């Protein structure tokens, strides 16, 4: 049984279609990423799947429960860490967690045990009795993650978990998320617009732009399927011979000879490197150096959307459009 099945989910705000017939499914224990620029519709998808927003049309099943018919059972089985802060800053860290645990009907003894456990996981044990208004941004984020874990959700939604955090905190949060996924087998769905984050954490990634999924695959699958790997060879001898020979291989996409160097775009270079050398030695051509480069997720994104994710958030005009769009999404 899949942890999440989404079928043609659509959300319209007036004329504006924020999510456009999105379908995907997530397996139990999977770490699944929704990657896209701000305003692509990621948060709207999360809000619908966590029962906070009603879809305009489409269906979804989460942890085996139907979104339309059984939202209460869904709420019992999911955890969510929102993009924007959602703590009561007038309470201490422990009080926030207690509130949450009691809302999920966790018995008093179990509550104490689990609160201690999650405090340890996020390293906030010594800050438990401090009012949240005195927490730093990173501490607040960690507290929210701790809170999302208390009721042992089957599916955990993380909406931009590391937005606005420094590199070090980001790293440690990545570690928490990964350990959580491995140790508890929790299915995690996260949205992000950080390429490295998606690449580092996710088993599979759906790239979303303008409310649609434009690609869905494993990070390495996305990279190889869309561009292939790039290998540069420095050739000693007849470059035309080897260029022609390699050009006939089915795993080679493109051959670009340039003086003494030969650039190849190919799939699965790990598997096919030996065959390159084999071909070269059969032809009596020497290879004096070899250089690989894997395409980054960023390259994939540029190829798919025609612009970088940073360009999209960078310019002033787009920032303004972004704000407009976000306002419409509220």
């Amino acid at each position, binding site marked *: 049984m899949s942890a999440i099945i989404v079928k043609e989910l659509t959300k319209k705000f007036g004329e504006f279609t924020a999510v456009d017939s999105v379908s995907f499914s997530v397996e139990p224990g999977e770490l699944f990423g929704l990657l896209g620029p701000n305003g692509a519709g990621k948060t709207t998808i999360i*809000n619908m799947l*966590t*029962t*906070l*927003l*009603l879809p305009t049309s489409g269906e979804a099943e989460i942890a085996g429960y139907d979104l339309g018919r059984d939202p*209460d*059972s869904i*709420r*019992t089985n*999911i955890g*969510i860490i*929102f993009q*924007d*802060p*959602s*703590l*009561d*800053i*007038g*309470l201490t860290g422990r*009080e926030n967690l207690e*509130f*949450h645990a*009691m*809302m*999920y*009907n966790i018995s008093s003894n179990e509550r104490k045990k689990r609160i201690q456990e999650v405090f340890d996981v996020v390293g906030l044990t010594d800050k438990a009795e401090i009012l949240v208004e005195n927490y730093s941004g990173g501490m607040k984020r960690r507290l929210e993650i701790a*809170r999302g874990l208390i009721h042992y959700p089957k599916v955990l939604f993380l909406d931009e978990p590391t937005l606005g955090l420094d590199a070090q905190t980001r790293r440690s949060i990545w570690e928490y998320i990964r350990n959580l996924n491995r140790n508890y087998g929790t299915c995690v769905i996260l949205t992000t617009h950080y390429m490295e984050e998606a690449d580092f954490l996710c088993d599979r990634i759906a790239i979303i732009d303008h409310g649609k999924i434009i690609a869905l695959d494993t990070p390495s699958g996305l990279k190889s399927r869309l561009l292939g790997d790039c290998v540069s060879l420095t050739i000693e001898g007849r470059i035309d011979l080897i260029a022609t020979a390699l050009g006939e291989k089915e795993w080679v996409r493109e051959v670009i000879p340039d003086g003494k160097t030969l650039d190849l775009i190919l799939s699965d270079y790990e598997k096919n490197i030996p065959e390159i050398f084999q071909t070269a030695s059969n032809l009596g051509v020497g290879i004096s150096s070899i250089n690989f480069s894997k395409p980054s997720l960023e390259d994939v994104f540029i190829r798919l959307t025609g612009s970088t994710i940073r360009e999209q958030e960078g310019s002033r005009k787009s920032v303004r459009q972004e704000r407009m769009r976000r306002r419409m999404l*509220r």
Partner: protein
Amino acid sequence: MIQARVIYVLWRREMIKYFRVRSRIAGAIGMPAFMLIFQGMGFRKVEFPGLPASIGYFQYLVPGIIGMTLLFTAAYAGMSVIMDKQFGFLKEVMVTPASRISIVLGMISGSATTSIIQALIIMLMSVLLGFRLPLIHAVLFSIVIMALISMIFINIGLILSSLLKDFHGFSTVINFIAFPLFLLSGALFPVSNLPAPIRILSYFDPLTYGVDALRGILIGHCEFSIVMNISILLTLSVLMVCASSYFFRKAEMI
């Protein structure tokens, strides 16, 4: 489906926050305390038509000011919902498996308790200023009335908070609603002294019956019968709870 545990958790949170922020207590009591002192002391000697001479104006005023305290603290309870909305905490509440009606009842129980605490502080203050308190069972009975009054006005605030998003909008609208309700209720003077057209309006004001019930219990003087007052208050509170849980179910809380 009403979940007692959810109501308790929300109530407990309200209590923790109420007793932690002392300035909130002082701030909310300031206004009725001034009314009590200046209006009460200043008009102490005045004789109102329609008021038995045995009951002085100060005796008459105290239940009115208690009603006022309840009205304003209760109506402003919606403000904390707006704050929770702005700080994002409401999302956290709404995404838990708690039923909407339990969430609404939890919010009501918390705010009702704080309103009643405020009202009791005012009552205590009035005793210090010379208010003659009835027997203890009457005081306890008056607390039931206080609960009903605050319930009605908390729900007005809650409904409003489900429709609005910002502080300024909320406080403008709630003032616009609360002041006429206060002035029409007969908290300061007998409603019978108002000209007929305005007096009719006061019969549509729930606080009229609340203040009248409090007077009946605390000073033994009321215009309508206590049974009638209580039935009106009870009916209204039930209707208001239904209305606000309907609005909370309908509203998109993000």
